[in-house]
């Protein structure tokens, strides 16, 4: 008897440590739930058990189907109790248990009874629960009650019905849309919350009807909206209307601007902020329109509430991107935020200041940031670094102080991402600001003297190798580089050897001394370092005299590897040691890996018969292997390109067929991937009969049938065509699948002996100009364009006719040419009137091609395009123009 007393005492002593749910167990709680079935219900005890169930559910505990059903049944018994507290718990646990459809029926009648009860609170809660657990059919039965509830004079009931409507709109939109008259009435309600909920629902119902939204906004902006929440919604809908009617604003004032401006004087901060932000986000907002909004945001900057400060500084940060001048008035308030306790606010303040600051304030700002940097996390530091980088590009004259700042923080403690951001910034500054080069390189040199990140060390060494030899005094970098050979791990040492070699190649006067250093590396403990040293000593010429280095050596050292490393790795893995040495030209240059669309056969393998290689090849390289294993195709030469699979059948037909186009110099092979989706059939001798009458330049030379195609095991059949060598011949091919079909007994899986010949019409297939183009990107388009030179340049202009928008025209041309868009230029900003798109690729015959497309659109949506092509062969440049002209 003393125990409970003691326990209670304990509780009191260390309240914080003891949880009322300590040692709670699902099994025990389910046992306890049997009290729900007692003839004499104890409401208090039942409520406690429900609380425990809720706790379990919130801890991620799941109930099995049987358990859930059992609890649910028991809970429905609780409707007999008249205890209010318990009833409220019952409502919430029903929602949490989210019963399945067959269980819902059990509780429906109880809830329907509550829904028509005289007690308002029963009605409101029953509506919420029913709407949460119901499905469409039940909903139509209770729709009448819900419509009444929306206009119920009790605001709790009305709100319950309206919010349920918002939920139901996701699942049963057509039913909810029928309530718009009632909802419209509820918008005029005197209860603030009802108005808020009604407005939200009404807008969701009508959001696709621009005219209706427009009308809604016009009527409400004139009247008075009671709740600040509803007012916020109204501001959002208003700015949506303004955005959509933006096209007719040239003449005069923006519609509804006065309303937004009026909201800036509302008494609720929420509304003021909403209006200010809406104004700053207006399309083409003028300075005059911005001023009042910026003024209220400026007041928020010195608010005692962190949330207001954050909201204001975040909005101003965005404005600073487009209207830096407008934000400069807030600079003083913003500067005081640098020391804000909340680091998100401080970082936003700093980055805003960096955007709005003028050249004269840079130094002062950098001083403030220096103290700030030491006490923020790395992720914020990275944001600041990026802002400083763009500031430096904006004010190149300030490079000295900014570069100093970067080098100082580079010396301090920090994680990899942070250091990488700094190094990247310095590298970009060196590239773009010639005056910053020498000091920047020295900062990097000092950094690698004490750098713990191998990746960064090797990156910097590589960069030094390219930029260092071009400086006025290359010799001063040698010490830093050679120190690496003594002090670092093998990866960095190897990098240092390569960098030394580059100095030797570019600076003839340094060559003898570089040779001495490289020779010392021949005794390194690591193979790679020794190998590199030997290689470079040989390529540079072993005597080490002061002579000019040959162009081919420079190309070898500095030229870029224009092969994707993934492809090189795969080819090397596939290479089998033999007499023939590995040929780097055999590595495919296509970057994209094309997964095949077919399903994989689940466990069932083709039953022998020496059929085609099982399983589809998943990469270009695998395609090459597959094709070279077929004797008919071995003399076609090197595979230039394989297209992505094109579906020749609709989804879910009896036979699924897709085709891959393999392009060779003088041949084209169609690989038909076939799948038989009928379990009762076995197909044999499967071929595709191709009619090439609309492809005059192609002549069929070989066809390789598929001997057997059992259910759900994909197989391939091939048809090869000859075409004029090196010519981008195009044409249309119609296809017919021909096969012998045999019935299969599903119980035994045995096929009958006799089969019937049958045919199946497939869709047409086209060989287009893009098939002769490989998508190969370049990392720096401008460099590539300039190094290609204007010798083989062809420029012409084209009219593309009326188009929906520029993006559509740009995509059409990219698809027509099948080239790789560079530097993200395939993305066209919305509403832009002109756009430049850069493409690169390799044309059949291994000719590099670069294309610069300039688009313009005029009033009636006519698109004009200027096409400039540079390639290594002027004939190819002409071909590109022909493709565009005929496309």
């Amino acid at each position, binding site marked *: 008897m003393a125990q409970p007393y003691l326990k209670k005492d304990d*509780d009191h002593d260390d309240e914080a440590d003891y949880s009322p749910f300590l040692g709670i167990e699902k099994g025990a709680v389910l046992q306890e739930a049997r009290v729900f079935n007692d003839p004499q219900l104890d409401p208090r005890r039942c409520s406690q058990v429900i609380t425990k169930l809720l706790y379990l559910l919130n801890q991620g505990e799941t109930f099995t189907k049987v358990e859930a059903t059992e609890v649910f049944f028991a809970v429905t018994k609780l409707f007999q109790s008249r205890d209010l507290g318990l009833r409220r718990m019952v409502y919430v646990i029903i929602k949490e248990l989210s019963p399945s459809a067959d269980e819902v029926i059990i509780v429906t009648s109880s809830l329907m009874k509550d829904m028509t009860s005289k007690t308002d609170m029963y009605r409101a809660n029953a509506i919420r629960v029913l709407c949460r657990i119901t499905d469409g059919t039940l909903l139509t039965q209770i729709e009448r009650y819900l419509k009444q509830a929306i206009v119920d004079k009790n605001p709790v009931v009305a709100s319950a019905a309206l919010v349920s409507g918002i939920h139901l709109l996701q699942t049963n939109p057509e039913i909810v849309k029928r309530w718009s008259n009632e909802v419209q009435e509820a918008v005029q309600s005197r209860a603030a919350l009802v108005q808020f909920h009604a407005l939200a629902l009404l807008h969701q119902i009508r959001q696709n009807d621009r005219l209706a939204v427009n009308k809604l906004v016009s009527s409400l902006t004139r009247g008075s909206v009671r709740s600040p929440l509803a007012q916020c919604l109204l501001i959002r809908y208003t700015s949506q209307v303004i955005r959509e009617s933006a096209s007719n604003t040239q003449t005069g004032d923006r519609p509804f601007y006065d309303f937004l401006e009026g909201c800036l004087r509302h008494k609720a901060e929420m509304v003021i902020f909403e209006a200010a932000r809406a104004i700053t986000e207006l399309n083409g907002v003028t300075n005059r329109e911005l001023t009042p909004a910026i003024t209220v945001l400026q007041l928020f900057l010195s608010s005692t509430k962190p949330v207001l400060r954050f909201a204001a500084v975040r909005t101003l940060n965005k404005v600073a991107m487009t209207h830096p001048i407008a934000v400069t008035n807030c600079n003083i308030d913003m500067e005081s935020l640098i020391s804000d306790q909340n680091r998100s606010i401080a970082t936003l303040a700093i980055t805003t200041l960096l955007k709005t600051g003028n050249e004269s304030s840079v130094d002062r700002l950098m001083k403030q940031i220096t103290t700030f940097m030491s006490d923020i996390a790395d992720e914020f530091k990275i944001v600041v670094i990026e802002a400083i980088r763009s500031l430096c590009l904006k004010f190149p004259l300030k490079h000295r102080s900014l570069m100093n700042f970067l080098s100082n923080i580079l010396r301090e403690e920090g994680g990899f991402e942070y250091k990488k951001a700094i190094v990247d910034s310095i590298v970009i500054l060196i590239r773009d600001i010639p005056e910053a080069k020498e000091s920047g390189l020295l900062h990097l040199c000092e950094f690698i003297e004490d750098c713990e990140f191998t990746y960064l060390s090797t990156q910097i060494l590589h960069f030094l190798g390219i930029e260092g030899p071009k400086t006025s005094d290359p010799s001063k970098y040698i010490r830093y580089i050679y120190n690496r050979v003594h002090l670092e791990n093998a990866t960095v040492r190897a990098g240092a050897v390569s960098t030394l070699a580059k100095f030797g190649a570019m600076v003839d006067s340094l060559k003898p001394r570089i040779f001495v250093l490289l020779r010392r590396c021949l005794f390194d403990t690591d193979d790679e370092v020794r190998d590199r040293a030997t290689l470079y000593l040989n390529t540079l010429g072993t005597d080490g005299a002061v002579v000019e280095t040959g162009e081919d050596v420079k190309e070898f050292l500095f030229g870029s590897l224009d092969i994707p490393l993934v492809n090189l790795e795969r080819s090397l893995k596939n290479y089998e040691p033999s007499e023939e040495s590995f040929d780097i030209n055999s590595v495919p240059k296509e970057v994209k890996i094309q997964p095949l669309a077919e399903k994989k056969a689940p466990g069932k393998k083709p039953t022998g018969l020496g059929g085609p290689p099982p399983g589809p090849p998943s990469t270009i390289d695998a395609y090459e292997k597959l094709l070279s294993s077929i004797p008919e195709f071995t003399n076609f030469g090197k595979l230039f390109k394989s297209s992505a699979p094109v579906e020749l059948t609709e989804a879910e037909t009896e036979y699924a067929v897709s085709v891959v186009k393999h392009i060779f110099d003088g041949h084209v092979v169609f690989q038909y991937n076939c799948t038989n989706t009928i379990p009762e059939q076995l197909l044999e001798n499967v071929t595709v009969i191709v009619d090439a009458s609309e492809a005059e330049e192609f002549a069929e030379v070989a066809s390789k049938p598929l001997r057997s195609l059992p259910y759900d095991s994909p197989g391939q059949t091939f048809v090869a065509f000859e075409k004029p060598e090196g010519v981008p011949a195009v044409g249309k091919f119609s296809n017919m699948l021909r096969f012998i079909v045999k019935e299969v007994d599903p119980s035994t899986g045995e096929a009958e002996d006799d089969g019937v010949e049958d045919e199946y019409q497939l869709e047409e297939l086209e060989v287009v100009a893009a098939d002769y183009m490989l998508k190969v990107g370049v990392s720096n388009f401008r460099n590539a364009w300039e190094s290609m030179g204007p010798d083989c340049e062809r420029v012409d202009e084209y009219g593309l006719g009326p188009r929906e928008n520029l993006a559509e025209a740009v995509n059409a041309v990219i698809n027509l040419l099948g080239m790789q868009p560079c530097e993200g230029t395939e993305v066209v900003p919305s509403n832009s009137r002109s756009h430049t798109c850069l493409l690169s690729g390799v044309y059949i015959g291994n000719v590099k091609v670069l294309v610069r497309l300039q688009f313009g659109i005029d009033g009636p949506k006519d698109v004009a395009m200027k096409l400039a092509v540079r390639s290594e062969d002027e004939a190819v440049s002409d071909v590109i123009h022909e493709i565009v002209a005929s496309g």
Partner: protein
Amino acid sequence: MLLTILISNFAGHILLERFNGVPSEERLHWRTVLVKLGADNLKGARNEELFVSSQKSVHIVFTMLGGVCIYIVGKDEYDELALTEVMFVITSSIKDACGKSPSERLFLDKYGKICLCLDEIGILENTEKDRIRRLIGLKPPNPTEI
């Protein structure tokens, strides 16, 4: 959308969570993110001091109330200010249900009541603590509040 309401203790143990339209495979991510945010920021914070953060397109407002940490995540129309309103409703209702800023123990003692409060708050269905108190007892709100 009000995406998440999550309440944990100081040790990062989750006491109560509500997800709206967050797929179950993303929930673990949010639990980790939020608990980490709390661990990084809430140490030594004042009671009910508001913290704010944004991650990608969502906004997060969080605070400490007695012995528990409360996090709410919203996106689109639920920006930091709207979330502050929600947070105010939540903290005031919890205090109301517990009689003061709750210790973890007191919070768990009143667990059922707090579940009901969150149910009434829903996706901002009710915003007044007195109204919520009456509603969870199935009593109609005072006529003056309507």
